């Protein structure tokens, strides 16, 4: 690599990537209860800056989502600076670049040209979103990244660190622990989660992220070049950007060093730089032996590089995006939603919710009870990774409103505490074949103890029963008062039975889904 007299500009770029990645990690860790009911940082800002998710949410909801207005900043930024968002800011881009240190890729542009795929994906996602099939969250780089970090990377990191310090706590000599325990305390107070977390779909989320990184093996920034629908959107805008790259021309002779090192494959055979592909990493500027490559602010040239889309494929993509949603209502879940599909408090009605939710995993990361888990197929295949409450794993904390605070798209409304207390997310039912006071004449009512409504939704009455030993005993038998139960699930969570809980929450009576109530009230 050629050494320049001053600090090469690509070092600034690397520093910038590092800083934004650090900022991403900081906000990720801060996506947590902080000691007060309100979060102190706009931890979801990354998603609100994402114009792909903004468009998808707006198309799905057919309404302007004010929360997502910051996405305009990214669009304007791109109009001025081209795809430098991808090269300098995007944390996924930084990770992909970082992975290149381990996953080597061939130099320059090799293999099949898959560049238009990201445009097709973008168009497909937007058309489908408009017609009722929300898919943006599955390929959005931030959603992919945060899901993998929330569900897999962070819990694994926690497990590794905690295991180490548990081992030393048990086996290290006193002087060792005198040194190590303060380190553990420090980590617990800074980077580790407060309590151990569990998540469904962790391995799948990790696999998807790993795939994005492994694709580097075939092309550098394979995902960013070819697949990223956000990259595709920014690429379309970049074609009109003011800051444009000026590459070489015939005078360069046989030199094509810039083309060989371009991580985006943005430099053509004739050494012209495509503004739609260049992410302004500036490697070529430092490398060019003749210092011919430079960037300048200039009105866009009309003869911008072609997107590479064909008319036929474009039409096919639009048609697929338009037709696929037609196959959704024909599924059984249209008639009978999954009874275990319990959404977080403040979630919009199901269709609206699915359209708005960007599958970012923020609500599940922040959920103080670890109650919110990624759905598998409960909401249909397009509902995968959307949040639902699994009470046996964690319950919805009565006085907590964090999920609504972090949702970047308003799929979960931000609720005041009194409003949250009034939202019914489901309702508890007793299984008298399992419940100890009913089934075995054994005293229990742990559920009643934990029921959080000021006028408890779980009450009890004394009842004489014959227990397993044939003795007549008086036990307190619990029951649910429907009008008081909000479905928080603490009863199911704390039920002391080792296996299946004897009190379980189903989606009946949800405030957001009028009509799913037994009594109509």
């Amino acid at each position, binding site marked *: 690599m050629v050494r320049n007299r001053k600090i090469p500009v690509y070092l600034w770029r690397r520093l910038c990537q590092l800083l934004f990645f650090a900022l991403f990690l900081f906000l990720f860790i801060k996506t947590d209860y902080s000691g007060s009911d309100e979060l102190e940082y706009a931890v979801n800002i990354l998603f609100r800056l994402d114009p792909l998710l903004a468009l998808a949410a707006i198309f799905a909801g057919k309404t302007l989502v004010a929360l997502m207005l910051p996405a305009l900043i990214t669009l304007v930024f791109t109009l001025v600076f081209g795809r430098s968002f991808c090269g300098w800011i995007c944390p996924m881009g930084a990770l992909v670049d970082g992975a290149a240190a381990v996953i080597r890729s061939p130099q320059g542009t090799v293999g099949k040209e898959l560049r238009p795929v990201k445009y097709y994906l973008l168009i497909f996602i937007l058309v489908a979103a408009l017609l009722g099939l929300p898919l943006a969250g599955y390929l959005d780089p931030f959603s992919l990244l945060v899901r993998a970090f929330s569900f897999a990377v962070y819990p694994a990191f926690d497990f590794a660190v905690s295991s180490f310090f548990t081992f030393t706590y048990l086996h290290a*000599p006193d002087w060792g622990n005198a040194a190590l325990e303060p380190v553990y305390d420090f980590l617990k107070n800074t980077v580790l989660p407060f309590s151990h977390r569990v998540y469904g779909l962790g391995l799948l989320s990790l696999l998807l992220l790993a795939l994005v990184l492994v694709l580097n093996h075939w092309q550098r920034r394979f995902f960013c070049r070819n697949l990223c629908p956000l990259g595709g959107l920014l690429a379309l805008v970049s074609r009109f950007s003011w800051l444009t790259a000026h590459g070489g021309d015939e005078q360069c002779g046989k030199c094509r060093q810039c083309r060989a090192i371009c991580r985006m494959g943005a430099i053509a055979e004739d050494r012209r730089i495509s503004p739609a592909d260049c992410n302004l990493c500036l490697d070529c500027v430092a490398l060019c032996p003749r210092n011919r490559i430079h960037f300048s602010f200039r009105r866009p040239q009309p003869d911008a590089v072609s997107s590479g889309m064909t008319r036929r494929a474009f039409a096919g993509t639009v048609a697929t995006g338009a037709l696929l949603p037609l196959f959704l209502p024909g599924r059984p879940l249209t008639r009978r939603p999954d009874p275990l599909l319990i959404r977080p408090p403040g979630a919009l009605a199901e269709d609206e919710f699915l359209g708005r939710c960007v599958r970012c995993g923020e609500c599940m990361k922040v959920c103080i009870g670890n109650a919110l888990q990624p759905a598998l197929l409960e909401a249909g295949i397009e509902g995968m990774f959307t949040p639902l409450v699994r009470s046996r794993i964690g319950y919805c*904390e009565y006085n907590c409103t964090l999920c609504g605070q972090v949702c970047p798209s308003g799929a979960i409304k931000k609720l005041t505490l009194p409003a949250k207390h009034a939202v019914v997310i489901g309702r508890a039912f007793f299984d008298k074949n399992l419940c100890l006071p009913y089934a075995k004449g054994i005293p229990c009512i742990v559920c009643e103890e934990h029921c959080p409504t000021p006028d408890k939704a779980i009450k009890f009455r004394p009842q004489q029963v014959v227990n397993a030993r044939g003795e007549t005993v008086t036990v307190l038998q619990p029951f649910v008062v429907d009008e008081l139960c909000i479905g928080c699930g603490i009863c199911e969570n704390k039920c002391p039975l080792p296996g299946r809980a004897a009190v379980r929450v189903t989606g009946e009576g949800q405030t957001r889904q009028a009509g799913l109530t037994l009594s109509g009230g």
Partner: protein
Amino acid sequence: MDRRQFIKDVFLWSAGATLAVPQFRIIPSALAAERPQPLLSVAKGADYAALVSRVLAPLGGMGQFVKSGDKVVIKPNMGWDRKPEQAANTNPLVVMALASLALQAGAGKVLIFDRSCNEARRCYANSGIQAALAGLDDRRLKIDHMDNRKFVPVQIARGKSLTSWEIYKDALDADCYINVPVAKHHGLSRLTLGLKNSMGVIGGNRGDMHHDLGQKLADLATVVRPKLTVIDATRILLRNGPQGGDLNDVKQLDTLIASADPVAADAYATTLFDLQPADIDSTVAAYNMGLGEMDLAKIKVLTA
């Protein structure tokens, strides 16, 4: 060999043995000794900081319980994500005053913790106890979240219903363990007082305790043994316990009860709810095991 030494020995020993499970055995004979008439102090007043000093005075003050350099554990009830006025947790002013007195008595270390039912950080914060203690600003004082590594299996030799359980190490090896429950209603046990508050230092699936709860709490009281019990009845929760939430269920009494006898403290506190000591299973079971006095006529009540 005393208990503390034994705990230390076990930990040193287990440092070398990977799979060994440390176990505690509390010698039953030490618990069975005849006791003199138990003293119990009751005080009433609106200045809670002063009230704590007043209620301890007839018992000899905090110096009677905390010696210089002692490792002190103060165990309030802060198990619920509720505000102080909702009476689900111990009054933060009472906890703060006790901590302050223990520090003044020369405690080497004062630890405060509870295994909460709601999310721990919310409980510590919203009970008001965390903020109150921060106000004391003393490096010897620490409000700690429970550390899962510190639950150790304990054999409960005298236990009739509960013969072994995981108990928090810091609670076991304190020089002075001060139990500070709030007096309140509880569906299953009718009231939760001192003995029930000890459930905040045990690990495992606590729901299992609810089968034969009274006897199990008495069994637990044979190994978790406060030197001092201070029952917070500055305001009590009459209904919808143990977490309440409705201020109409709260009654202000401005009262504190203190005793070195955990059973006597519970027995007396029962009367605040117009109940008799015999109405509370854990009190009766503990009395029957010789852990303290429940006969109000045999308790010397000192009004401070």
